[in-house]
């Protein structure tokens, strides 16, 4: 495993170089978002779900938002979508499991450090958060969301390594409907369950900090292996025409 990680890091060196500017923008974005969160936390208590939507989207798609155009997924030919770097790597003597691992590390580096940074400044600069959550509960809250960024966030990774999807009006409509449905669920959530999604995770972190953290870490480990195997299956099957 260590050898594989070393190999993956060696291969992604050139990519990391061109991502330096992107990382600056991600850093700036997380800073601004955290400020927004600090000021908007009161509004959330009044069943305002805007922050929930943003929070969920941030932990799933955040790492992909600032990716340079040349590294964004493409559909070179046929119906298979993939990162251009995956196609480039497949033409070289790089094993498929290393390409998958590299995609995961690539995503992880663009998400985890910035999410961690967000949680640190959120706790440091929000007296309201500090009043509501003691350190243990806050750590649990951070673990819940950092783990979510893995077991849910990694769901945006399979498309990097070869995902077959026909471009059609029907598919576009279905994708938009799915996204719309997620947004609607998040918006109506507080009306049916009293609190919003983020608020509920705060409640879990306060009431059951250890159990919530352990379950989240466990889910993250399962999620990691699930998405990794799914990606390996896809990369083995895809036709990169």
């Amino acid at each position, binding site marked *: 495993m260590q050898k594989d990680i070393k190999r993956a890091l060696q291969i992604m060196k050139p990519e990391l170089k061109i991502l330096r500017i992107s990382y600056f923008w991600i850093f700036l974005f997380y800073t601004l978002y955290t400020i927004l969160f600090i000021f908007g936390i009161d509004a959330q208590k009044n069943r305002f779900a805007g922050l929930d939507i943003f929070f969920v989207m941030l932990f799933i798609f955040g790492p992909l938002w600032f990716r340079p155009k*040349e590294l964004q997924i493409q559909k*070179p030919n046929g119906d298979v979508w993939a*990162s251009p770097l995956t196609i480039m790597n*497949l033409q*070289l*003597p790089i094993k498929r499991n290393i390409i998958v691992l590299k995609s995961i590390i690539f995503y992880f580096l663009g998400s985890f450090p910035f999410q961690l940074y967000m949680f640190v400044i959120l706790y440091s600069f929000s007296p309201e958060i500090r009043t509501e959550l003691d350190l243990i509960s806050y750590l649990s809250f951070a673990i819940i969301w950092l783990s979510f960024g893995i077991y849910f966030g990694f769901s945006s990774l399979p498309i990097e390594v070869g995902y077959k999807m026909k471009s059609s009006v029907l598919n576009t409509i279905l994708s938009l409907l799915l996204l719309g449905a997620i947004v609607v669920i998040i918006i109506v959530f507080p009306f049916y369950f009293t609190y919003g999604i983020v608020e509920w995770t705060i409640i879990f972190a306060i009431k059951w900090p250890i159990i919530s953290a352990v379950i989240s870490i466990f889910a993250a480990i399962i999620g990691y292996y699930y998405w990794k195997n799914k990606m390996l299956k896809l990369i083995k*099957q895809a*036709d990169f025409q």
Partner: protein
Amino acid sequence: MNPILYIRDLEKTIDDFHLGPLDLSIEQGTITALVGNNGSGKSTLLKLIMNLVKPDKGNIKVHNTLVHGDNESWKELVAYQPQKIIGWDPFTGYTLKNLIAPLYPNWDDKQFQKIVEIFDIPLHKKFGKLSQGVQQKLNLALTIPRNASLLILDEPTSYMDIPSKKLLIDLLVDWMEPGNRSIIISSHQIDDIRKLSDYLYVLHNGKKIGHFEKEELVENYARYWLSSKAPNNIPGEVSREDGVLISSNPEETEAYLVEHNIRWTNRSSLEIEDVITLLLSKNNTIGGSQHGSHVNS
């Protein structure tokens, strides 16, 4: 001796295009030109060899290792230059070289420097900012020095200027010197085919027309200027226009002409491009199996 590349009963369907069934064996020390009309499946075949496209049927082995299996060690033994380069745009030549060179145990840095020099390739510029011709040259500079035993080139000279094409041919001839290497080159450039190839693997609309030894193939065709009237369907006849008959079996044709006292004023052999045109001609109903120069693939 095991062939470097072994393909048996290979078939692939993509939408309404069907490739195969194809059989092919590539031996050490040979250059095979992959020839065919546009959309004949040349690039798809090369992608199948590289396991970028998965077959519906059949096997492909590189040095006796199945390319579609879990063992990926064969990749070090193949250097592939695709027709359309994906993923290189944001990187400079230096960066690409630093990425690619350590992946190949036989990488020859001197050869890389030599190719960069003779093609005058700017390594500090991003790949995406280079002209198509220079991109192709850089791609070659990053492919040939890998010194893998099988070099696969998909339309390597389509954007290159005439002097560069000549330089490349010289480079590839030198590269073949050790004798244990092979090249598969897909090309529409007749000079590449004429000067480089030992064998021709001809495809037409996904079907194999034949696998031929180049010199033998050319020798097996002849053109006759007939001076007297002759009946249709002379043995070996492939085409006839204004009294000029082309035969794919000169021996049989001549025997027939002599026997029937049909005279000809001149006889000449065909150029390789004429033979390829005949092979790929829509109206050409002659299957590869009828040609005497077929290679046992």
